[in-house]
């Protein structure tokens, strides 16, 4: 008897769907992968889906930004054995959570002006990991294809994927890039950010924006002090350090400085 294939679901909450697209971008590996798993629920790629069956593996991308998102997430969790958070939104909140401190009414007014909108029922954007437990978290904006494949192949082999948690600096140094901080006095989030991207931005002479979210223990304080000591203004530091991982980083003390600077 043939071994039964694991049932897999791939879901997007509120987000850009870029992580799901990255899965589709695994062109050469996609067909062999699809043969090994039974993808039963993937609205983005299939028109025939089973929304209720039990799932062995489910991938979830995006943030919880509506009540509906939260319901979907809870339903997915309830029917899934191994749940994987896909992308920085799902793991940390990412871009949608960058400005949670601004009230929704203000955002609505600024973006859509005064036209009355009935479909906007958003709440504060928070990562799915805030609401339900996940077995695996895979950050990235978007995710790296080779990391997604490592997760998928490990799970298919009945193992948990192993990720060595190293900062972006590891890959940056391995490539012998000139350090954006040491040589260019830039705000680079590399030392606080989980690597795996091959230090893509610094390799193209752009400082790391921290899109993959923080390491387990980023030395936030020493990082911002380092930038300030190099003569970079607090406003500039705050602006650069409030991208992507805003909820994780900015709450740790930077808000004060931003307000301080504005008053002056």
């Amino acid at each position: 008897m043939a071994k039964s294939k694991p049932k897999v679901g791939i879901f997007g909450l509120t987000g850009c769907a870029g992580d799901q697209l990255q899965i589709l971008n695994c062109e050469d590996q996609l067909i062999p992968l699809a043969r090994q798993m039974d993808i039963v629920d993937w609205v983005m790629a299939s028109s025939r889906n089973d929304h209720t069956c039990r799932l062995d593996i489910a991938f979830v991308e995006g943030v919880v930004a509506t009540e509906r998102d939260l319901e979907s997430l809870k339903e997915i969790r309830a029917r899934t054995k191994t749940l994987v958070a896909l992308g920085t939104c799902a793991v940390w909140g990412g871009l949608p959570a960058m400005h949670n401190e601004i009230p929704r009414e203000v955002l609505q007014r600024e973006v859509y002006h005064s036209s009355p909108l009935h479909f906007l029922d958003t709440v504060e954007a928070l990562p799915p990991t805030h609401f339900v437990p996940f077995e695996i978290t895979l950050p990235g904006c978007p995710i790296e294809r080779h990391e997604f494949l490592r997760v998928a192949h490990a799970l298919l082999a009945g193992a948990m994927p192993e990720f060595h948690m190293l900062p972006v600096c590891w890959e940056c140094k391995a490539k012998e890039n000139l350090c954006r901080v040491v040589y260019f006095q830039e705000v680079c989030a590399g030392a606080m950010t989980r690597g795996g991207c091959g230090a893509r931005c610094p390799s193209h002479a752009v400082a790391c924006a921290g899109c993959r979210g923080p390491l387990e223990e980023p030395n936030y304080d020493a990082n911002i002090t380092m930038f300030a000591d190099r003569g970079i203004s607090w406003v500039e530091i705050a602006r650069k350090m409030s991208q992507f991982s805003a909820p994780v980083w900015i709450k740790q003390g930077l808000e004060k400085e931003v307000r301080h600077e504005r008053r002056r």
Partner: protein
Amino acid sequence: MQTFRMNASFLPAFMEALKRWGTLVAPVERGAGTYVLQAIDDVSLARPDALRTILPFKKLLLKPRFAMLERRDGGRTEEVFDNDMGPIVYFGAHACDIHALEILDLIYMTDYVDPYYRRNRERLTVVGYGCMPDEYCFCESLGTETVERGFDVFLTPLGDRFLVTVCSARGDDIVRANPELFEPASRADTRDYLKRLQEREQSFSLAMDVTDLPYVLELKREDPVWDEVGKKCLCCGSCSMVCPTCACFNVVDERPELGRAVRARTWDACLYRDYATVAGGHNFRADRADRVRNRYYHKQEAFVREFGKPSCVGCGRCIENCPTGINVVEVFKYVRGEL
């Protein structure tokens, strides 16, 4: 050991001749004032006078990441020779680099011989090149500013000529195969060489007091200085990556594609939180301060106990590359209560 003299204008011809012994690798300028070791065909690109390359020569012996074993479904596990670089001529090694090479040999070829390291090491030709220290160099404090062994040929620039020191059978081969480049060293060469040595001695501006350092460290294990450094350290691992003697590695199993598994080896660093994480999620050095302290203790205390000398050669790479400006010389001054 033999000494010769080579006219400075023969340097390109000498480098061309070195290609017979393997891929010529030399420092090449990457950005203003920064250099990387790179295989070159055009010998005019070589900048042997460059003091430091971003990564040291250790990358020529062990790649930052390489595959060790591979297995395809239904097949046997096979050794892959991803790390084998073939014969390499490392041109432009400074005295500190050659001392560091000796330290790596102690680490990788003393008790358990590392086959990956050895395969490249045995095929490595080392051509040294005399240097003048800058503000980050403190090799003199560690006694690594000159070198008497561990290289094949060493060139000391003396203006319009080089003093050529030969220290191995392979070095002798190189000289014998190119007799037109060399002539016997004269008394004037020796005189100028000694003059240069003196000049060099006087140009060191950074010094580290290593007197009884292992004992000082033994007594200062609980010193608050380690918490201070721990607060400042980002644990980015840059110092370990660029250190010519940092040798720790990690081994990971991966399935990069369906039906294929790879066991890979990567450079690692004790500054990373994951490094001391063991089964069950326990961590021997969960605190940043513990990890920073460990790095310094390994270099200046544990290594001395095991091999009789520190595993720091004073190259200054960690000082130059630390984004928060942690300076090993100052750290030890703090430890001694001098700052």
